[in-house]
C-alpha cells in the first residue's frame, strides 16, 4: 500500500494534538514544529583601535578645561559604547553582528574576543599610553577574523564578509615589516572581496598616506573633529542594513574543467 509510509508521521500526532488545542483554525500544512532552526548568518566585525599616548592628550572642543574639555580616548570610548548599544537595540543586527576589539600601542592586544553581543556586557576601558604599533594591531585583527570564520565553518554557520574598522591618530612606528605585511594582507583580502576595511584617521597628526594604503576600494577618511558617536552610529546602521540584506552579486570562482553528468 503506497501510503503506508505515512505511518511514522502519524505516530507523532498524539504529541502534536496538544499544540492544536491552542490553534484550531490554522490550516497550515507546515507548522512551527516542522521548521528547521538555522543559526542567523553572522557578520564578524573587528574594531582595531589606536590607544597610544597621543590619544589621551586633552583636546579643545570649544569649552573651558573646567567644564567639558575632553580627550580622543574618552570620545572613542563613548563612541564604542554607543556602537554596542545601537547594535543591541536592533532586532536583527543583535543576532547577526559579532564584535571583537583589538587595541594597539606598544603591543597589540585583543581586549574583547568575539562572542554573542548579549554576552559582552562590559566594554573594556581604554587607557592611552605608548607608541603606535599599527601593523601588529592590524595583523592581530586579521588573525582573529580568520579564526572566527573557521569557527563559523566548523559549526555550519553562514557569514558575511568580515569588517575591519581601523582607527588611529598617529604615525605607525612599530615594526616596519609587520606594517607592510598587514597592508599586503588587507589589500589581498580586499581584492578577493573577502574583507571590508574602514581606515579612519583621527586628528591632524594622522599619517593619512599610510592609512590610505590599507584599502584600494575605500578611501581612508579623517574623522571630523571628535565625531566618534556619529561615526559609530553610521556603522551600526550599516551593520543593521547588511543583516537585513538579500543575496547580491555574483563572485568569481577558479576556472575548472566543465564536468559532465552526475548521478544521484
Amino acid at each position: 500500500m503506497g501510503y503506508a509510509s505515512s505511518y511514522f508521521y502519524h505516530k507523532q500526532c498524539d504529541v502534536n494534538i496538544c499544540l492544536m488545542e491552542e490553534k484550531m483554525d490554522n490550516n497550515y500544512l507546515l507548522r512551527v514544529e516542522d521548521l528547521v532552526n538555522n543559526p542567523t548568518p553572522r557578520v564578524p566585525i573587528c574594531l582595531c583601535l589606536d590607544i597610544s599616548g597621543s590619544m589621551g592628550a586633552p583636546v579643545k572642543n570649544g569649552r573651558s578645561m573646567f567644564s567639558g574639555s575632553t580627550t580622543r580616548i574618552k570620545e572613542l570610548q563613548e563612541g564604542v559604547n554607543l556602537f554596542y548599544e545601537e547594535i543591541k537595540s536592533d532586532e536583527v543586527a543583535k543576532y547577526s553582528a559579532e564584535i571583537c576589539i583589538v587595541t594597539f600601542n606598544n603591543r597589540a592586544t585583543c581586549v574583547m574576543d568575539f562572542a554573542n553581543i548579549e554576552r559582552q556586557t562590559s566594554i573594556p576601558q581604554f587607557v592611552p599610553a605608548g607608541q603606535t604599533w599599527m601593523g601588529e594591531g592590524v595583523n592581530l585583527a586579521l588573525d582573529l577574523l580568520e579564526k572566527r570564520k573557521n569557527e563559523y565553518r566548523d559549526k555550519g554557520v553562514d557569514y558575511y564578509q568580515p569588517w575591519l574598522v581601523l582607527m588611529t591618530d598617529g604615525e605607525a612606528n612599530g615594526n616596519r615589516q609587520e606594517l607592510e605585511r598587514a597592508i599586503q594582507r588587507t589589500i589581498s583580502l580586499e581584492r578577493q572581496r573577502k574583507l571590508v576595511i574602514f581606515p579612519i584617521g583621527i586628528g591632524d597628526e594622522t599619517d593619512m598616506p599610510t592609512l590610505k594604503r590599507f584599502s584600494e576600494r575605500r578611501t581612508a577618511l579623517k574623522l571630523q573633529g571628535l565625531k566618534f558617536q556619529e561615526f559609530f552610529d553610521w556603522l551600526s546602521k550599516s551593520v543593521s542594513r547588511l543583516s537585513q540584506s538579500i543575496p547580491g552579486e555574483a563572485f568569481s570562482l577558479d576556472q575548472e574543467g566543465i564536468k559532465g553528468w552526475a548521478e544521484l
Partner: protein
Amino acid sequence: MWNIVQCSTQGLGHIKTNTPCQDKTFALRFNGVTAVALADGAGSASLSHYGAETVSKHICTDIVNNFDDYYYQDNGAEVKKQLVAGITDALNAKAAELACQTKELASTLLAVAIKNDCFIIMHIGDGVIGYCKNDELKIASEPENGEFTNTTVFTTSKDALFTMKLIKGHLSDIIGFILMSDGSEASLYNKKDKRLSPGLKKVITLNKTLSTDKIQEQLQHSFDTYIRDATMDDCSLVLLMDDGDAFKGYRHLSNFQKCILLGIDSETHPYIIRQYDSILRYAREKRTIRQITKHLRIKQNIAKVRVRRLCNLNYLECNDDTYRTILRL
C-alpha cells in the same frame, strides 16, 4: 500521476522597500514530459524578477521540447553548454525588450523534468533540490554559495557554465522532488547537517490522500506566515509529487488501513473507527463541534478529541470554528 505544487511569498525585506517578489516558479506538461522550475532574482539586479520569470519559463520549455536529446546525450558538458546558451539567448531577448543590460535580469535557476521513468535535474546558484526515495528525504543538489552567505552564482555569471549541476537518472522509488529558494532554506533546510525538514516528507505523503488544490492552499498559508517570518528574503518552493494512484479514497479502505491512516492502534474498537468515518462523511459540509456532537450522539469532549486528531492530520480544515473534510473520501 505526478502532481505539482508551487508556492512563493514576498519577503519582509521586499515588503519594506516595496520591491516585487523576485522568486518565480513555473511548471509545464507537454510531450509526455513534466517540467518544473524555480528562479530567484538577484537582489542587486533591478529587473531580476523579469529575469527569473524568463529563465524559469524558458528552461521548462527547452527541456520538454528536447528531453530525449538531452537525456540520451552522453556528453554532459555538451548538454550544459546548450542549456546555458539557450538561457543566455532568452535573457538577451528579454533585455532587448526591456531596453536594459542582461545583467539586470540575473537570477539563480533550479529545474527538474521527468519523462516516463527518467529525470533530469539542473541547478545554477543557491537554493536546494531534494527528493524523496524509499521514505527518506535526500539532497540532489546543494546550494552554490561560495564563502559568504550573500554571494552566489547567477544565470548571467561567467561561471554559470562551470558551476552548473546537471544530473540524470531513473526514477525507481523516487516519489517526489523538492525545489526551494535560499529564502525557504532558512526554515526548511538544515545547513549544518544538510538535511531537509521532515515536514516536507509529510507534505509529499499527504499528496496521496488530499487534493492537490488543498495542499497548494494550505502550503501557501504556511509560506505567508511561518516561512516568511523566518527570513527577510523572498521564499519559494516547488514540489513535484507522485500520488502513486494507490489511494482510491478513504471509504475504500479496510479498518486496518484506516487505523494506519488515522495513526491509531490497529486493535482499536471498530465503533471508534466508525466515529471517524461518520465525522469525515458528515463534515463534507461545514459543521461545528456542536453539530458533530449531536450527529454522532457522543459527548462533546470525545467529539473534540476526534476532530482534533483529524485536524492535526490535515484531513479536516478549520475556519471560524467550523470544520470541513478535505481528505479524499
